[in-house]
């Protein structure tokens, strides 16, 4: 029962977090500084998720193939390559290094 209570509470609360700003924005126009803060917060949110997801896969290991995949992906992203290419090259590099280490 407590699992249901927690899941429903998080679901309803998350809906509130999602819909609240969408409804409030139509009622008043925030000052430019708020837009600036929101823009930076969006960048910060994606950056934090990136770092935490990197830590998660590095912890899962094995280290060398994971680092190889992430390094290739980061280099391609820096060169503005499309997401398909980045995911394919990153995963491919990870598997290739894994295979090499297994030989």
């Amino acid at each position, binding site marked *: 029962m407590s699992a249901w209570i927690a*899941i429903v509470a998080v679901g309803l609360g*998350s809906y509130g977090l999602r819909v609240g700003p969408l409804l409030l924005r139509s009622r008043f126009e925030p000052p430019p*500084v708020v837009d600036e803060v929101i823009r*930076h917060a*969006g960048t910060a949110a994606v950056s934090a998720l*990136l*770092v*935490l997801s990197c830590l998660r896969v590095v912890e899962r290991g094995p280290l060398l193939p994971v680092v190889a995949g992430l390094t290739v992906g980061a280099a391609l*992203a820096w060169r503005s390559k499309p997401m398909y290419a980045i995911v394919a090259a990153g995963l491919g590099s990870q*598997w290739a290094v894994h295979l090499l280490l297994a030989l």
Partner: protein
Amino acid sequence: MAMAPLLIGFAPYAVVVGSVIGAHSSPAAGWAGIWLIFGGSAHLATLNALDDGSALLAALTGLLVNARLLVYSASLSGRWRHQPLWFRFAAAPFIVDPTWMVADQRARRPGTLAAERRHFFGAALSLAAVWGALATLGMLLGSHAGASLGLDVAVPLCLFTLVAPRMRDRQGALVVLTTGVVAVLTAAWPAGSGLIVALTAGTLAGTVASKAAS
């Protein structure tokens, strides 16, 4: 189509979330959370906290992890302020990292309000269908199904494509680096609190840099 690479990226994560649901003592409630919470990190955090404590603690943990949705929604609110009320109510449950990324990219291109609505719902429903199906599959397959092939690396690979363009100006680079350093330092903090601290630090650094530049 805009969602396709993100679906590949988040697919292993969905399987991992599903495997955790399958191993939980209340799999039915966990499965319902796929749709009710619609966010992998908060879902996992809630299930983990349920194992460790009360429903209240688990709910607070999940909401803390999902606090970033407030930022996503706030950033979309300006772009969607001319959209009808029904759209804002109907789109809200689907606002999560990948749909926000897609909506953010779409908003930079010209188009009608109706086209923007179709684009968002197309992306959101594709994600919901694939996420739900793969999480259910993971639940049936059992533990660590996604991680065993190393497919979970696809999540940060997708996120690289969003962070890299923001590194090209000084303020953006400062936000990314500050957030990254604080996220590493606070990674072991409980209940997603480190994520919120990192997000706040990065936002603060960017805002101070903007003030100094203007």
